[in-house]
């Protein structure tokens, strides 16, 4: 499969008053052309930082210790900021940021902001741009689009702002669209509409998409491949089916269990115990060990490598070592997975 983007061994530290935070600890990541890859993982696991590195928008206290980021055949990390901005950003790789308010200019109307990018990258007349901006607003489901063009960001609801940011990203017809939590502020019906819209554009224009999200329902809907991040590393990757029907990393098990299920009626939701490690201090052994009830002696000493499960499925847990004891999945998760597989007629390898 052809890859439009591949990140290799990315390693990033932030300098802070309190010391150095080793936020990204060797991330490998691939985006096959025309496909959708989801990046999931707990808050602080490094999803946004990884993608900011791709678009060259890391905060100024970041140090890239090592790594390569290939867009087609170009290593983006070797480009100057200016070259990156001119050729890639916005035009070929567009990013929708997590917090819509921070990427909108409060002093400009949303119409001006959508048209701005078009003027920057294309020869286009004012009235053409206006027409296109209105179309884009309609496309992302904003009603009375013509009137809304004159609104300032604070006059819009949270979800409307988010859709405006998506319209801006699409305005330059990018090759790669990176969406950081694009639909968290949207209700389910509009979320579904936006996801379908991106999917439609993807089919028409061969767009490749990266989704950062914690919403596993969204992942299930849009992703072809899933990367699960924990403490600055990708700890499990696979096709969407492999991750949802046959997850192998205990952290992935925790994520799947924490998702509220309309069918169960428990008083309390499952949540992964403890909190992620403070990356001011380099974790010793497996960074997830302290929160993993299946942890073994070796987890305290050595970081597990990626074990291969299939051509597409890998996970970094010592449980996959040939000498590891066989373990029984938690009952609640086991029945969940069984239900999911059955509903999907999934007959891949089972855990």
């Amino acid at each position, binding site marked *: 499969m052809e890859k439009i983007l591949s990140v290799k061994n990315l390693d990033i530290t932030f300098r802070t008053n309190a010391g150095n935070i080793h936020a990204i600890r060797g991330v490998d990541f691939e985006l096959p052309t025309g496909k959708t890859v989801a990046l999931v993982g707990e808050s602080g696991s490094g999803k946004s930082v990884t993608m900011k590195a791709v678009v060259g928008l890391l905060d100024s206290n970041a140090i890239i210790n090592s790594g390569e980021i290939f867009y087609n055949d170009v290593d983006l990390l070797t480009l100057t900021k200016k070259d990156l901005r001119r050729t890639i950003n916005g035009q070929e790789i567009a990013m929708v940021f997590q917090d819509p308010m921070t990427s909108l200019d409060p002093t400009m109307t949303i119409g001006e902001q959508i048209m701005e990018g078009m003027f920057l990258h294309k020869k286009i007349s004012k009235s053409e741009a206006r027409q296109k901006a209105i179309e884009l607003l309609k496309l992302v489901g904003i009603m009375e689009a013509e009137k809304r063009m004159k609104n300032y960001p604070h006059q819009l609801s949270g979800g409307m702002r988010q859709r405006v940011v998506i319209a801006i990203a699409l305005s330059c017809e990018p090759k790669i669209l990176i969406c950081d939590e694009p639909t968290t502020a949207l209700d*389910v019906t509009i979320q579904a509409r936006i996801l379908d819209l991106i999917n439609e554009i993807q089919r028409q224009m061969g767009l490749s998409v990266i989704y950062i999200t914690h919403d596993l329902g969204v992942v299930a809907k849009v992703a072809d491949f899933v990367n699960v991040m924990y403490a600055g590393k990708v700890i499990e990757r696979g096709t969407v*089916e492999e991750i949802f029907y046959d997850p192998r990393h205990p952290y992935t098990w925790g994520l799947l269990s924490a998702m509220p299920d309309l069918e169960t009626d428990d008083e309390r939701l499952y949540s992964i115990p403890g909190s992620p490690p403070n990356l001011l201090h380099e974790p010793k052994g497996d960074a997830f060990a302290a929160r993993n009830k299946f942890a073994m002696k070796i987890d305290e000493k050595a970081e597990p490598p990626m074990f291969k499960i299939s051509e597409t499925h890998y996970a970094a847990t010592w449980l996959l070592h040939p000498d590891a004891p066989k373990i029984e999945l938690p009952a609640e998760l086991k029945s969940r997975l069984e239900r999911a597989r059955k509903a999907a007629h999934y007959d891949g390898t089972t855990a």
Partner: protein
Amino acid sequence: MTEPLLKVENLRQHFKISRNFTVKAVNGVSFEIYPGETYGLVGESGSGKTTIGRSIIRLYDPTDGEIIFNRDKISGELSDKIRRRLRKNMQMIFQDPMSSLNPRKKIGDIIGEGLDIHKLYSSQKERGEIIGEILKKVGLSPAHAERYPQQFSGGQRQRVGIARALVMNPKLIIADECISALDVSIQAQVVNLMKDIQSETKCAYLFIAHDLSMVKYISDRIGVLHKGYLVETGTTQEIFTNPAHPYTQSLLSAVPQPNPAVEKKRQLISYDASKIDYEKCTMRQISDSHFVLESGEN
């Protein structure tokens, strides 16, 4: 029956954008919240959820309607005394975690602001302890008090917003999409945390969200908003097992499930309200607690 903690009656909130364009964000919404209960408010983007929250806490001046909170009338002109009581007893957790935290202030001072205004400690040491304690409660560490908002991830910032509200020990917390920006595991932690705090302090929540599966978990009763109108309200059980309004039904049909094969084939129940004039509809009672907005004909 106990007296409601909050009573919203016929609330209208309109915004004039220009001479010939007024956004009618909230149109005659009425509901009550009882002490210690959680009322979930759901509805599509732009339906007026945040506006209702902001009108209640008086960041806006309501265009029309009456709001009674803790026996005080808090719509219309506010006396200093009532404004002070309102500031102490009602807190809001905002939707947008970045723009609601002052980037030049340390986390400890952001959380401590309310404590400072209402002088809720006797020494700096006690102030530090209260802040450290609340940070631990929301899953951060006391050492984080010295950091600035930019140094946190999106999810961590949201927990700061929650800590800032909780520290005041309010009677009502308006939580506007307070978990949407969090990852699933922390969502679960925060929802469990909010439930724990509620059983400890008996505070009530107005829980604004679009994630119905979470709303189901936390709410006792739910109100469904559409285009600024409350189209249905009932107990969580009633809304989920017996949704009466077609908009509620379409919302329920769109709740995503963590199953790729199911998700990729899913059909939504669509709902078109363009021919319905909600202004001409009335609330029909289905049970003691269950009401639905309907046009007169059916």
